[in-house]
C-alpha cells in the first residue's frame, strides 16, 4: 500500500493518431515496466481491432514506479480511457478514477473536436490538465501555434506545456516530472468503510471476469466478502493485483490506488461499470455518485448470409456479450433475411466494432440492416387497450399509425471542427439533415460549429459524408441531448409490389420524398435486371411517394453451344447459381445483399 502523497492517477487525452499510445509506451519503458524486448508495439491496446484502428475500447491501466528528481519513488497509475463518444459513460468512470490528465496534442495537427470533448469532460471532473505538445520533431510541427490554440480554444495555460516526441523519446522524463509536480495526489481514508469504484470489467478465459477498481476509502484484500451496491450481488475476492503492465498479484489495494480484483464472476453483466464495491460486513451505506445503467442508442439487425450459420451467430454473439455488457441482442426474423438478431449498441463505432469482431474473430459473413435509433411512441387507447408509451427499436414493429399520438426521437448536440474552406458544404450537410445551428466560432483558419441534430439523421452515413466533403479534415463529436417530438413516418419500400421489411425506415415527413426517391434510384442500380419489369416504390401508408422501374432483361443467351461447350456452359450456370445464393429472394426478385445497406447510402446528392 502506497502513501497517498506518493500516488498520482492520470489519464491521457488525445485525438486518434496524436500519439497517445506511443507516449504511454515510452512512459512505461522509462519506468522499467517492460524491457525493450517485451514491448510489443502499443502495449495498452491489446485487441486486434484496437491496434488497427488506433482506438481504445476497454479501459486499461498500468501501474508504474517512478523515481523522481526529488529522490522519491512515486506510484503512477496511467489509465488509458476509451477514446470515442460511443463509450462516453465508460470514459466518465475512468476519468472519475483519476485526479489529472495529460492533454496530448499533435504539434502538426493542432486541436481537434474529439480532443475538446474529452478535455471538457476532464475539466468537469476537476482534473489538473497538463498540456503535452507531441511530435515536435515533425517538419510540419508548429508548437507555438498549437500552444496558442490550446490557450485560445480550450482556455488552458499552455505556457508550461511539455514538448515531446514520443516516437523519438524526447521529453519523456519531463512529462513524468510534470505528472508528479502538477497532478494532485488522491484523497482517501484507509480506516473508513470500503468504497471502491468499478471502473471497467472484462472477461478473461482463465480468470473469469476481471474487474478494474479505484479504491476511494478503505482497503481491498484477497478473501474479503464484498457486495456490489447497485448490482446487489455478493462475491468473494479471490485475487487482488495490478498491471505493470504485466499482471502482478498484490496483498491489497489501498485508498487512492487503482488495481484489479477477481471474484469468480462469470459474466461481465454482473460487474457493471460505475458500481460501488463495499464489504458485506460493516460496509458503506451510500454508493458513489454517477452510476448509470447503459442504454443502447443505435439498433440494427444482424443476419447470417448463410442461413445455416444462425446457430454459429447466436453462439458468437453470446460470447461477445460475455465481454461487453453494453451491447444487447434479441432474436429477430425477417421475411427477406430469415432469422437473425436485433442488436443494440452504444453508437455507430460500437456497432462497427461488434460487426467487425463477429466477422473477423468468429469468421461470420453477415448482412447488416440499416441502423436505426430508439423512438418513443405514445399510443392512444383503443376499445381493448389503454393508452401507453412504447419504445420502438425496429421499423418493422411500427404500430398502427391511427393509434399514434406522438413520436419522439433522440437528438444530439454535434460539435464539428473544420478548416473553414469546407464550412459551406458542412453547413449544407447539417441543414439537409434537419440540423439546428447553435454556435459558430472561428479560430485562425478553423471553424467550430455546433449543431443540434436528430440522431436518426446521423446514424447512417453522416460521418462518412462529413469526412468526404472535408477531405478528411473535419472532426466530429456528439453528445445526446434527449428526446424531441418529430413528425416522423414509416416509409416502406416495395419491390415488385411487395414491401421489403429490411428496407423500411422511419423518416421525417419533410424529407421522406427525397429519401424515398433516392432509395428507389439506388435500388434500380443495385438490383440486377430480371426477366420481367420490376417496379420499385417508396410509400408512406398507402401513398406512393416515389417510383422507379427496372427494365426487363432482354438478352442473355449463349449464341453458340455445341458438344465442346457443355463443360464451360455448365460452369457458367454454377456461377450464376452461386451468385443467386448470395442474394435474397423477395417475391420473385433477387436482391443482392449489399443492396440492403447501399440503398440507404445517401451519396453525392
Amino acid at each position: 500500500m502506497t502513501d497517498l502523497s506518493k500516488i498520482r492517477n492520470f489519464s491521457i487525452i488525445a485525438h486518434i493518431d496524436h500519439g497517445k499510445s506511443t507516449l504511454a509506451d515510452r512512459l512505461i519503458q522509462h519506468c522499467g515496466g517492460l524491457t525493450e524486448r517485451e514491448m510489443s508495439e502499443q502495449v495498452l491496446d491489446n485487441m486486434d481491432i484496437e491496434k488497427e484502428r488506433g482506438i481504445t475500447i476497454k479501459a486499461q491501466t498500468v501501474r508504474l514506479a517512478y523515481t523522481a528528481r526529488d529522490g522519491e519513488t512515486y506510484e503512477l497509475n496511467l489509465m488509458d480511457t476509451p477514446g470515442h463518444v460511443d463509450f462516453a459513460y465508460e470514459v466518465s468512470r475512468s476519468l472519475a478514477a483519476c485526479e489529472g490528465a495529460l492533454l496530448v496534442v499533435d504539434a502538426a495537427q493542432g486541436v481537434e473536436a474529439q480532443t475538446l470533448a474529452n478535455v471538457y469532460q476532464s475539466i468537469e471532473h476537476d482534473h489538473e490538465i497538463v498540456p503535452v505538445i507531441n511530435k515536435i520533431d515533425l517538419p510540419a510541427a508548429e508548437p507555438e501555434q498549437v500552444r496558442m490554440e490550446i490557450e485560445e480554444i480550450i482556455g488552458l495555460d499552455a505556457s508550461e506545456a511539455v514538448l515531446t516526441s514520443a516516437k523519438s523519446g524526447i521529453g519523456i522524463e519531463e512529462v513524468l516530472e510534470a505528472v508528479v509536480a502538477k497532478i494532485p495526489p488522491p484523497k482517501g481514508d484507509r480506516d473508513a468503510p470500503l468504497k471502491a469504484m468499478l471502473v471497467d470489467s472484462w472477461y478473461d478465459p482463465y480468470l473469469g471476469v476481471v474487474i478494474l477498481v479505484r479504491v476511494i476509502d478503505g482497503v481491498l484484500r484477497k478473501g474479503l466478502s464484498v457486495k456490489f451496491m447497485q448490482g446487489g450481488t455478493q462475491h468473494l475476492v479471490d485475487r487482488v493485483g495490478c498491471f505493470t503492465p504485466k499482471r502482478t498479484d498484490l496483498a491489497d489495494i489501498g485508498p487512492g490506488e487503482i488495481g484489479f480484483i477477481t471474484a469468480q464472476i462469470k459474466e461481465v453483466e454482473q460487474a457493471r461499470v460505475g458500481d460501488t464495491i463495499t464489504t458485506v460486513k460493516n460496509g458503506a451505506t451510500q454508493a458513489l455518485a454517477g452510476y448509470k445503467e447503459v442504454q443502447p442508442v443505435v439498433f440494427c439487425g444482424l443476419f447470417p448470409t448463410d442461413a445455416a450459420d444462425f446457430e454459429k451467430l447466436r453462439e458468437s454473439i453470446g460470447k461477445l456479450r460475455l465481454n461487453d455488457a453494453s451491447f444487447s441482442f434479441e432474436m429477430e426474423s425477417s421475411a427477406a433475411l430469415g432469422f437473425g438478431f436485433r442488436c443494440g449498441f452504444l453508437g455507430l463505432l460500437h456497432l462497427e466494432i461488434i460487426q467487425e469482431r463477429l466477422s473477423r474473430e468468429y469468421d461470420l459473413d453477415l448482412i447488416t440492416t440499416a441502423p436505426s435509433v430508439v423512438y418513443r411512441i405514445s399510443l392512444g387507447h383503443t376499445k381493448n387497450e389503454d393508452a401507453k408509451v412504447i419504445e420502438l427499436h425496429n421499423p418493422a414493429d411500427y404500430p398502427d399509425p391511427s393509434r399514434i399520438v406522438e413520436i419522439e426521437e433522440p437528438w444530439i448536440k454535434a460539435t464539428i471542427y473544420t478548416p473553414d474552406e469546407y464550412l459551406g458544404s458542412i453547413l449544407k450537410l447539417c441543414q439537409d439533415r434537419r440540423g439546428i445551428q447553435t454556435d459558430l466560432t472561428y479560430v485562425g483558419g478553423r471553424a467550430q460549429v455546433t449543431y443540434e441534430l436528430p440522431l436518426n439523421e446521423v446514424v447512417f452515413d453522416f460521418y462518412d459524408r462529413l469526412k468526404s466533403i472535408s477531405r478528411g479534415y473535419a472532426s466530429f463529436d456528439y453528445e445526446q441531448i434527449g428526446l424531441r417530438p418529430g413528425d416522423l413516418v414509416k416509409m416502406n419500400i416495395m419491390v415488385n409490389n411487395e414491401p421489403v421489411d429490411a428496407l423500411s425506415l422511419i423518416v421525417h415527413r419533410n424529407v421522406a420524398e427525397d429519401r424515398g426517391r433516392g432509395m428507389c434510384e439506388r435500388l434500380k442500380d443495385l438490383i440486377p435486371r430480371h426477366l420481367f419489369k420490376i417496379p420499385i416504390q417508396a410509400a408512406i401508408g398507402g401513398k406512393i411517394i416515389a417510383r422507379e422501374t427496372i427494365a426487363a432483361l432482354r438478352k442473355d443467351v449463349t449464341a453458340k453451344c455445341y458438344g465442346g461447350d457443355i463443360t464451360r456452359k455448365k460452369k457458367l450456370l454454377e456461377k450464376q447459381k452461386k451468385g443467386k445464393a448470395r442474394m435474397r429472394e423477395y417475391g420473385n426478385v433477387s436482391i443482392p445483399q449489399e443492396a440492403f445497406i447501399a440503398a440507404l447510402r445517401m451519396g453525392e446528392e
Partner: protein
Amino acid sequence: MARALYIHWPFCLKKCPYCDFNSHVRDGIDHGLWERSLLADMQHEHALADSGPLTSIFFGGGTPSLMPPALVGSLLKEAERLWGFDAAIEITLEANPSSVEAGKFAALSAAGVNRVSLGLQSLDDEALGFLGRLHSVDESLAALDVAQSCFQRVSCDLIYARPGQSADQWEAELERAIGFGTSHLSLYQLTIEPGTRFATDVRRGVFEPLADDPAADLFALTQDITAAAGLPACEVSNHAAPGEESRHNLTYWRYEDYIGIGPGAHGRRGGFATQRHKKPENWLHAIAEQGNGLSEERPLNASEAASEALMMGLRLREGVDLDALSRRFGLSVDTMIDRERTEFYRSLGFLWSADERLGVARQGMGVLDALLGEVVSGELVAS
C-alpha cells in the same frame, strides 16, 4: 450409345478476332503425322465405344476445309471400317468460302462429305473486313455456288448484331441469304468472348458492341423472318426447313453420346466426359506417348449429367421430355427442376409445357441463360 463422331482440325490461315475456338495458325503441317495420329485417336475411342453404325460425322475446327481431301477420305474410310455407317449418315464439314477451298469441294464430296457448313459470316465487304475474314462477298458467293452443286445439303453461317448494325440492314442481309435457297442457316449474334482480340478492342474502346436492347430486337426480327421463310428456329441460333436440321448437332442438344477426337475435342461416352489436349503439339505428344489424345476422362454423376441434359435440351424448340430424363438419370423431376419457378415463368410466357415436355417459348429463347438459372434446380447444380 455414341453414334456421332466429331473430328477436330485445329488449323486456320488466320485467327478471326471474334473466335475463341481451339484454332491455331501453323506453318508446315505434317499431314502424314496428323493422319496417323487422328486414326490412332479414333481407334482408341472405337475400342471403348463400339456402338453400331454411325449416324453422323462432323469435321469442325479450326478450318477443316484446309484438310487435304485425301486425309478426309482416309479418316472416313477408317470410321466406316470400325463402326459402319448408317444408310442415312450425315457427314458435315465446316468450310471457308474462299476460292482455294471451293476448288476442293468436289474432291471432298467424292471422299464422302455430304453436307457443308459454309462460313459466309456476312454479305457486306466492310463487315467481313471488321470480322477479319479473308474472303470477299463475291468470292464467298462463288464458293456457295460450287458448294450447292457439289453437296446434297448446304448450310450458311452469318454473324449479326454487329456494332452499329440497324434492323433494316440486317433484314436486307438476312432476306438475301434466305434467297440463296439453302435448307439450313446458322445465325449467330456476335458475342465478345474473353480471350479474343475483340475483347481487347472493346476494353480499349476501339468499338462498342451493339447494346442488349437493339440486339434483342434483331434476335426477335430474325425469328420472324426465318419463320415466314419456312426456316424456323429449331435451336437458339439454328434455323432449318423441317427435317433439314443438322442431325449431328441434334445429338449434342438431345444429350445423346458423341465421340470427340482431335485437339481439344470433347466427348460424352458411356457416362464419361472426355477431353483431348487442346494445343496441337501436346495432343500429338499424347498420341505418341499414350496412343490417344485424352487429357481428361471423368465420370459424370447423375446430377451433372441431368443438368447438362437440361442446359442443352432447352436450347431446342422441341424442348425436353422430363419423364424420359427422370428415368434416364434416376432422379425425380422435382430434383431436376424448380417447379415453382418453372410455373411462374410459364405463366409469364417464357416457357411452355405439354404433358411431361417442357420447352422454352419464343419469348424466352433470347434470355435462355437467365431462364436456365431459374428453371434448373439449385440442388442439381450444386451437387
